């Protein structure tokens, strides 16, 4: 600890004697950003499997027309809890995990700025989801009103376990806000000397902007669930016309949270892809500055488009036009991003390692989700698409082949850095191809089913939809099972089975994280590195 090596970037190896505690206590009491990052990532993966299992129940029931496996009430609980778990339990914690692991290493900081709060923000999460999942086994069942919990279905017409749902969402919100504060404070204060704003890696930039979105909108969600709670149990009438309230106001409040929320789930993904593509194209990102500005524009626009989820609620014409135009505008900065990635690939020296495969799949499939998003923005046509499987196809393209694929890409990109060994590449490629094929079998036909008129969130459907739903279900089971390959691979890698890797795992990689040893020592950058 006392001696500094010539190159401060590898100084971290000096504190190996200051390693982690042993056993369970290490994980319970840890304030180390890498430990907490691992906890977040494993938690997210477990939630991904649980939420996925619920999707399997949904797909099994929809395998053929008629009611076979679950009753409609339980079906609604499955769609609701699947959505809540995937959004709040899988995608968001996974990105927080990546932020914990990577942001301090990318900006040359020794840890997150608020390590004890970091521990706390993780450890309340398992309780939130325990409470949520417990409600499924209680009298009245879990939440059955969709992850969007529209009033009055979630107030007067819901079961009493709604109170636990509200409590659970509160805990998730507190956790997210603490995580976001930590990210902002860390990036603002703990950058190594010379790491100016416009030198920060894009993953840091996108997370920085995401954290502001989180702080802005999670309290709005907390307000929405609290009003649901008091409407249901304490006789208020925020959303009840009989008492002077308005059920549509609920939707405005919810989507004022909900729309920035979807960008919370995709902006860090843009950061990941912007790290991976230049590495394997061996060429700098085409437009770094424009990527930063595009991210910021998307974040700002996300606050003025929320009502595009509500075109059928009976908005005035002016409102519909305003939200249609603003929503269409979002495709401009999003387009800038896609064009930039493609321009980065152009005349590069491209190779197809597994993280690159997932990143390329992301670019194509996320763009398809972007196109359907643009179609959904056009109000008159949205009247036909709204609340059909076309919407389900759209948001699964942006969230599964978008956000989730980027998380998987990130895991394959940085896993060797975390474990110090190269994972089983054969398994990884099998995981990629199985996922790619099955995910498209799962979600692509949903576009057609939606255009043909199948509403979402129904447990049974008319006969014309039978064939397509069967294919979709088969795709769903295959995609679910494909993730077990990933599980096997992760277990192998965490047990350090594989060839040891160098500090710079990928020959084209740039950034501070590649200058520390692999596996990354428990403490890195105790002395700040010098940035060129």
């Amino acid at each position, binding site marked *: 600890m006392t001696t500094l090596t010539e190159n401060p970037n590898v100084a971290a190896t000096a504190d190996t004697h200051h390693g982690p505690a042993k056993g369970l206590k290490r994980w319970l009491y840890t304030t180390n950003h890498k430990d907490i990052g691992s906890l977040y990532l494993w938690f997210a993966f477990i939630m991904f499997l649980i939420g996925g*299992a619920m999707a*399997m*129940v949904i797909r099994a029931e929809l395998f053929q027309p*008629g009611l076979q496996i679950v009753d*409609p*009430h339980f079906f*609604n609980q499955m769609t609701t809890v699947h959505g809540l778990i995937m959004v709040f339990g899988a995608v968001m914690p996974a990105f927080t995990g990546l932020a914990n692991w990577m942001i301090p290493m990318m900006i040359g900081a020794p840890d997150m700025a608020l390590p004890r709060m970091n521990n706390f923000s993780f450890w309340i999460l398992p309780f939130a989801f325990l409470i949520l999942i417990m409600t499924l086994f209680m*009298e009245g*069942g879990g939440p*059955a*009103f969709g992850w969007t919990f*529209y009033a*009055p*279905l979630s107030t*007067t*017409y819901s079961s009493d*376990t709604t109170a636990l749902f509200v409590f659970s969402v509160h805990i998730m919100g507190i956790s997210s806000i603490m995580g976001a504060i930590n990210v902002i404070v860390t990036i603002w204060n703990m950058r190594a000397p010379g790491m100016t704003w416009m030198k920060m890696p894009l993953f840091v930039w996108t997370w920085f902007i995401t954290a502001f979105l989180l702080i802005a909108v999670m309290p709005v969600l907390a307000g929405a669930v609290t009003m649901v709670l008091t409407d249901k149990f304490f006789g208020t009438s925020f959303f009840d*016309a009989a008492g002077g309230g*308005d*059920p549509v106001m609920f939707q405005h409040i919810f989507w004022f949270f909900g729309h920035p929320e979807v960008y919370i789930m995709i902006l860090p993904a843009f950061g990941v892809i912007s790290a991976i593509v230049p590495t394997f*194209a*061996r*060429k*700098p990102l085409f*437009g770094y500055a424009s990527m930063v500005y595009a991210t910021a524009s998307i974040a700002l626009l996300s606050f003025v488009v929320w009502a595009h989820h509500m075109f*059928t609620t009976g908005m005035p*014409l002016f409102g519909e036009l305003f939200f*249609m135009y603003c929503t269409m*505008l979002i495709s*401009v900065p999003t387009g*800038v991003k*896609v*064009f930039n990635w*493609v321009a980065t*690939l*152009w*005349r590069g*020296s*491209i190779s197809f390692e597994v993280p690159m495969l997932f990143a390329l799949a992301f670019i194509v499939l996320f763009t*398809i989700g972007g196109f359907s998003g*643009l*179609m959904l923005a*056009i109000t*008159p*046509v949205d*009247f*036909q698409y709204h609340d059909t499987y076309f919407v389900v196809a759209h948001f699964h393209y942006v969230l599964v082949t978008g956000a989730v694929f980027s998380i998987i890409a990130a895991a394959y990109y940085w896993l060797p850095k975390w474990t110090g060994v190269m994972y089983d590449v054969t398994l990884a490629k099998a995981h990629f191809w199985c996922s790619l094929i099955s995910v498209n079998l799962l979600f692509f036909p949903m576009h*057609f*089913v939606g*255009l*043909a*008129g199948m*509403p979402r*969130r*129904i447990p*049974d459907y*008319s*006969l014309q939809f039978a*064939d397509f739903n069967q294919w979709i279900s088969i795709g769903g*089971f295959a995609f679910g099972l494909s993730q077990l390959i990933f599980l096997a691979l992760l277990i192998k890698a965490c047990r350090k089975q594989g060839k040891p890797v160098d500090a710079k795992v990928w020959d084209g990689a740039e950034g501070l994280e590649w200058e520390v040893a692999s596996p990354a020592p428990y403490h890195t950058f105790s002395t700040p590195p010098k940035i060129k």
Partner: protein
Amino acid sequence: MKLIKLFACVAIAISFVSNAADKAVEMPLNMTKGVTQISAEVYQLHMTILIICAVIGVLVFGVMFWALIHHRKSKGAKAANFHESVKVEIAWTIVPFLILIGMAIPATRTLIAMEDPSDADLTIVVTGSQWKWHYQYFEHDIDFYSVLATPREQINGRWDKGENYLLEVDKPLVIPTDKKVRFLMTSDDVIHSWWVPDFAVKKDANPGFINEAWTKVDKAGIYRGQCAELCGKDHGFMPVVVIAKEPEEFDTWLADKVEEKRKAQEEEQRLLAMNMTMEELMSEGERVYLASCASCHQPNGMGLPGVFPGLVGSPIALGDVDAHINIVINGQTGTAMPAFGKQLSKKEVAAVVTYERNAWGNNTGDLVQVKDVHEFVKRSL
């Protein structure tokens, strides 16, 4: 445990692969053109945007795959080092923006037309309730409920499924062709959404508020849709069926309906003077119960614990008769129990109350006659 059982069933479901396919009806692969001028415009817009997106997609992915094929390291490609170009960045900001303006103009035009329900020839109040639609012809004294007609046995797989499985109702909405029909949407309980794809009309029915929509159908026929907004347990089981008739035929239908209503009122008067037997009341009561009550309270009267109360041994079903009639007719505010007073005739209320008081071991022996219901209504006025 429940979950584990479910997963076992997944495996069984897979073995049914061939089952569903034999009766499958052909599914269109694109949005319907529909049968109104608006729905045709919407289809046109949809196709325009789809084609623009497809062209952009082909161009962008074309460039990308060209790079992936030709600029590969394994082919000896050396990386260039160009980056940052303000000109290019401005170009790929401006060009998409111009394309967007091109899309927004026709979209705005269609939207303005869709949102103009003025000068309607006929107004229909559409009220959603869990889980059926109520239609009231504003200018005529006619109203009725429209409930799913698909038998439970088809849903549970005991019977073969019919051609219009889940898209059939007992009393469809009837509208005239070539007339501007205005819909006023509202709801008795949660939010529903009334959707007929062939009209390109989808509008939420919000409790306590009224929304407007309109259509002008060009072609006589039967058009089917569904509730589009999650509205609780049986959201998937509240279809919309609209029959569009030529104006003359529509007028005939309307006259028949008025006559039908008058006859029903006469029948009610006649029943006031009569006593029905237990068997008559029970069999009529069972029919009404299965049609109107069973989706919540369940066919066996057990309800869904924590969501819908059971009626077996319940204080309402075993207690005061008037209180029982009251909850059926007026509902229970603050709960999911709706008021059935508008929906059921007095005879039906009498029968269903009798049934609930004597079925599933609720052996109170109480007989509720039409006149009892009539007197209750008179007293509570």
